């Protein structure tokens, strides 16, 4: 056996130590499953073996399934029956483990997630080490799957339906002590005593029969639809899942169905039900989409897959932050939090201090919630130095400006900064609207000038968009990416364009919402369908948040910058009407598309139907949904065509983490693959005829559909650049 060390001690206890080679953490590779199976045979057949203890040689126990194999499962061409056989494989190994006739204890030395925890649940006894970084949980739902190794059957039988559902539908991670409180493990001990404690149980208690295999077993807290508490759990639980998923994510309700349908049956029948639901999820694109974008590709982005090769790793120890407004204050906070010294510069010390107050407030919140010691918070605050003196920027490896969005002002701070910072320092702009190439004209060293575009609020938003100007050099890119890794955010790298990638494509969403309003489509329908499609906020509500006034000014500025090339968007008449005629400029002004009563919730302005009388008939919700999502997907394809994006993964990750495009889609490009390339093209052709050229299908996409070549096909980018 290559992945399990199998040793029998003098007491006849087999110690199984899992150690998957060439992996930082144990994952459930086919080899590990085979070795586990072989070990079970040994335990049950060797009369000298009294019982067994399972542990790991790594700092974690077993971290879960091999996600790469899950992505491939979606399109591997295997039938449902074949996938069912595959799903039964691991599950039945664990069933053999718990019915092997000898007591087996799990010595959980560190993190046990997914299939890792499922191994433990199939053991007769579980003892976990009290290790700070260790977590236990069944997080499969986060990749659109369910715990298919018996988790949906054993956990509710162990701790009751409600608690089990809570953990499995949320994918909650528990610390060992919390797992003990929930009854998932039997004991928590010091790491040193872990294996001895497990062995003691085998020798002293050693009951080789699971509770659910004993006669008269009842699910704690009841099960089925004849038990009042269970009915309540299932009824409310189903509605809450509908509310949270908007029917976009198939896994949570499948988990609930496994629990409901399985817990009224003997465990073997329940396990069979679990496998069948598991297969339905494997065959659903949502699991492929979430796994591919949010784990595999995001993981690669976090490891800086786009970092130029051949440049030594860099580290920012001192960051210059120009402008202490909302963005600057947020960037200063996350940077100081990550251990950097931050020079927070504004036109005077007071303004800079105000920016630092933001960090004070956030840190105080952490202290109040018991999440941080006040000494630690103090250390972070001490790293932020406020000033109005450019001389203090001396020694900064990286300076980021977040001053007013005006080319002249930005040119001025660029010059002042470059006068004092080291020759190899990188200057970055956090602009969200001005092209980087143009701003770099003010720099003496444009190859060291780059865009680092943060999202608001900076401390919460996980994405950072790196924008390369025409002259931006590889070293600048490397420094920017290394910095983003330091602050533990996910970078995407895009080329310069108006609105870059994220702002530009997100603009098509709000524009489509306003266009539909203009066409007389019910604003409630637009807003509700947008949210039900998985967008965090409706397009009209977003416009109110960022203010129609800002949209108005950006429009005017763009028109001025582009001159004769300017083409007003279909939504711009709406913005003009609301700003110029109706004086409803957005939430900050107390009125926009919505009214904001002082008491009570905001609601759509009743006057909307007079400004834009309702059309008859109204479109179906499905049509509204398509318009809102497809328009964003199409513009992402254009970004690939124009070279704004150089890789589909940046498009997908950026859409989900940047502006909250719904995760179930896998991102704007994966959405197209999910719909089906040809179906998507046909629908857009129809919509282009009906709604205008926003839905015109790029030639590249038409070609792709014809060739049946997905965005992630190996030759996809090559074919694109050849075209």
């Amino acid at each position, binding site marked *: 056996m290559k992945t399990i060390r199998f040793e029998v001690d003098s007491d006849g206890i087999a110690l199984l130590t899992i150690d998957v080679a060439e992996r930082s953490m144990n994952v459930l590779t086919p080899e590990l499953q085979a070795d586990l199976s072989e070990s079970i045979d040994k335990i049950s057949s060797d009369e000298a073996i009294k019982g067994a203890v399972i542990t790991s040689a790594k700092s974690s126990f077993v971290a879960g399934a091999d996600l790469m194999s899950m992505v491939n499962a979606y399109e591997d061409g295997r039938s449902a029956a074949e996938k069912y056989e595959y799903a039964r494989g691991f599950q039945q190994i664990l069933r053999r483990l718990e019915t092997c006739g000898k007591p087996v204890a799990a010595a959980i030395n560190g993190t046990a997630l997914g299939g890792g925890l499922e191994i433990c649940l199939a053991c007769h006894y579980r003892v976990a080490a009290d290790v700070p970084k260790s977590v236990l949980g069944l997080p499969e739902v986060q990749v659109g799957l369910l715990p298919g190794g018996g988790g949906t059957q054993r956990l509710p039988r162990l701790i009751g339906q409600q608690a089990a559902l809570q953990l499995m539908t949320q994918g909650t991670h528990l610390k060992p002590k919390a797992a003990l409180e929930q009854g998932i493990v039997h004991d928590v001990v010091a790491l040193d005593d872990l294996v001895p404690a497990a062995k003691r149980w085998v020798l002293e208690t050693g009951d080789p029969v699971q509770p659910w295999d004993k006669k008269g077993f009842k699910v704690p807290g009841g099960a089925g*639809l004849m038990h009042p508490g269970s009915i309540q759990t299932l009824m409310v639980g189903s*509605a809450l899942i509908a509310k949270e998923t908007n029917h976009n994510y198939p896994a949570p309700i499948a988990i609930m169905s496994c629990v409901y349908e399985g817990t009224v049956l003997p465990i073997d029948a329940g396990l069979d039900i679990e496998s069948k639901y598991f297969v339905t999820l494997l065959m659903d694109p949502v699991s492929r989409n979430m796994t591919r974008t949010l784990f595999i590709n995001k993981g690669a982005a976090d490891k800086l897959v786009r970092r130029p090769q051949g440049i030594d790793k860099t580290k920012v120890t001192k960051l210059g932050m120009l402008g202490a407004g909302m963005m600057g204050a947020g960037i200063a906070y996350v940077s100081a939090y990550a251990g950097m010294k931050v020079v927070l510069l504004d036109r005077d010390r007071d303004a800079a201090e105000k920016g630092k107050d933001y960090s004070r407030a956030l840190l105080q919140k952490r202290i109040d919630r018991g999440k941080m010691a006040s000494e630690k918070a103090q250390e972070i605050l001490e790293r932020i130095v406020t000033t109005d003196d450019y001389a203090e920027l001396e020694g900064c490896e990286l300076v980021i400006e977040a001053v007013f969005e005006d080319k002249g002002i930005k040119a001025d701070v660029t010059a002042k900064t470059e006068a004092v910072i080291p020759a190899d320092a990188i200057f970055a702009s956090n602009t969200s609207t001005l092209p980087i190439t143009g701003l770099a004209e003010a720099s003496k060293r444009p190859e060291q000038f780059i865009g680092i575009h943060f999202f608001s609020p900076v401390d919460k938003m996980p994405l950072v968009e790196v924008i390369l100007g025409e002259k931006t050099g590889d070293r600048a890119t490397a420094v920017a990416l290394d910095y983003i890794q330091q602050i533990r955010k996910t970078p995407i790298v895009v080329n310069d364009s108006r609105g870059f990638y994220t702002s530009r494509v997100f603009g098509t969403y709000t524009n489509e919402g306003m266009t539909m309003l203009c066409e007389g489509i019910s604003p409630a329908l637009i807003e509700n369908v947008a949210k039900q499609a998985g967008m965090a906020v409706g397009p009209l509500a977003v416009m109110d948040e960022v203010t129609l006034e800002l949209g108005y000014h950006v429009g005017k500025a763009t028109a001025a910058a582009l001159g004769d090339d300017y083409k007003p968007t279909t939504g711009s008449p709406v913005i003009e009407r609301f700003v110029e005629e109706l004086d409803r400029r957005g939430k900050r002004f107390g009125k926009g598309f919505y009214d904001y009563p002082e008491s009570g919730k905001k609601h759509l302005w009743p006057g909307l139907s007079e400004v834009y009388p309702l059309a008859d008939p109204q479109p179906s919700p499905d049509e509204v949904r398509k318009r809102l999502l497809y328009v964003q997907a199409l513009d992402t394809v254009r970004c690939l065509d124009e070279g704004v994006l150089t890789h589909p993964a940046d498009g997908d990750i950026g859409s989900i983490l940047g502006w909250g495009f719904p995760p179930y889609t896998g991102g704007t490009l994966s959405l197209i693959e999910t719909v089906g390339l040809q179906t998507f093209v046909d629908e857009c052709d129809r919509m282009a005829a009906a709604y205008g050229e926003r839905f015109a299908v790029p030639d590249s996409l038409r070609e792709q559909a014809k060739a049946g070549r997905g965005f992630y096909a190996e030759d996809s980018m090559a074919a694109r650049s050849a075209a």
Partner: protein
Amino acid sequence: MADAFVYDHVRTPRGRGKASGSLHPITPVELTSQMLSSLRDRNELDTSYLDDVVLGCVSPVGEQGANIARISALTAGYEQNVPGKQLNRFCASGLEAINTAASQVMAGQSDLAIGGGVECMSRVPMGSDSGAMAADPRVAYDTYFAPQGISADLIASKYGFSRDDVDGYAVESQKRAANAWEQGYFKNSVVPVVDRLGMTVLDHDEHMRPGTTKDDLGNLNPAFVIPGEQAGFDAVALQRYPEVEAIHHVHTGGNSSGIVDGAAGVLIGSKDIGDALGLKPRARIKGFASIGTEPTIMLTGPAPSAEKVLKRCGMTTSDIDLFELNEAFASVVLLFMQQLDVDHDKLNVNGGAIAMGHPLGATGAMIFGTVLDELERRDQSTALINLCVGGGMGTATIIERV
């Protein structure tokens, strides 16, 4: 096809559906037995002529379980050749039982039958029979299940009925019910319930609050905010009806039907059996229909079921003298009047379930009797009886005096 005639009907008073309710000590079988006994005694009926006792019951479990129709007939002292069956079309069960009994007569397969229903909501609470509809995750999720209170609030939100509208309707229901009791309109049909010693336990509908004003009602809290907002059902409703901006919770205990105990029965038979037994027909059942509608909004079945039965009978709403629509929730009735352009002067003229209560399985038979009595009092001819039904259904029946 034979005609099905209505020979008589009785109902018990409606007791408050809680432990303090007067009928709470009476078992469902006992309550039903007393109802069946009165129907027999006041018609001096030889029960051996009965071909069936069909009773609606919505929570047929526990003491309402195991076919309460057959057991109650036996305990009422009906001849043992009289069979019984219990059926469930949720809130229209009582009317459906009448329709079923009538259809047996029309088809020539019964001469004489009883249709009616029972529900002791104080003893077997609503929902006691569980069911996949609300709680099997796959079923509830795929059908966008929402509880009926949310559906009623959805109707109000979608069709624009304000809290003021629904409260206004409720005040009128109370006023009409109080007037009808004062004037003695119900006295021929309501038989007091007695205890083991023959002493009267209840002789009137005790859920009523005569003199209720809009101000009184305005002080009540909306009843379905918690299931709507905390249990996620508002979101479910909006997923089905995204054109509705938000659910406005306007229904309260004061403008929704009351939870009560009660039983009712209607004696139905062919012309020949009436002649043979010396019974005088009071009305003819002209037709009936049930229909399925969208289940999330659930309670919009009355208008389509009314249209279906009207069409079947070759009639229009103008041919109907009186409408009787169960007041499950005020918005249901307001929507019906709006959709079919029916004047409130012709509908629920003696109040309804908002004032007097809605004993689920029995209500259909109760309102059937109420409107027949009123046709006679007014010397009018036709009435349409109608209920909204859980799961998205409606049931309607048209009667005509003879």
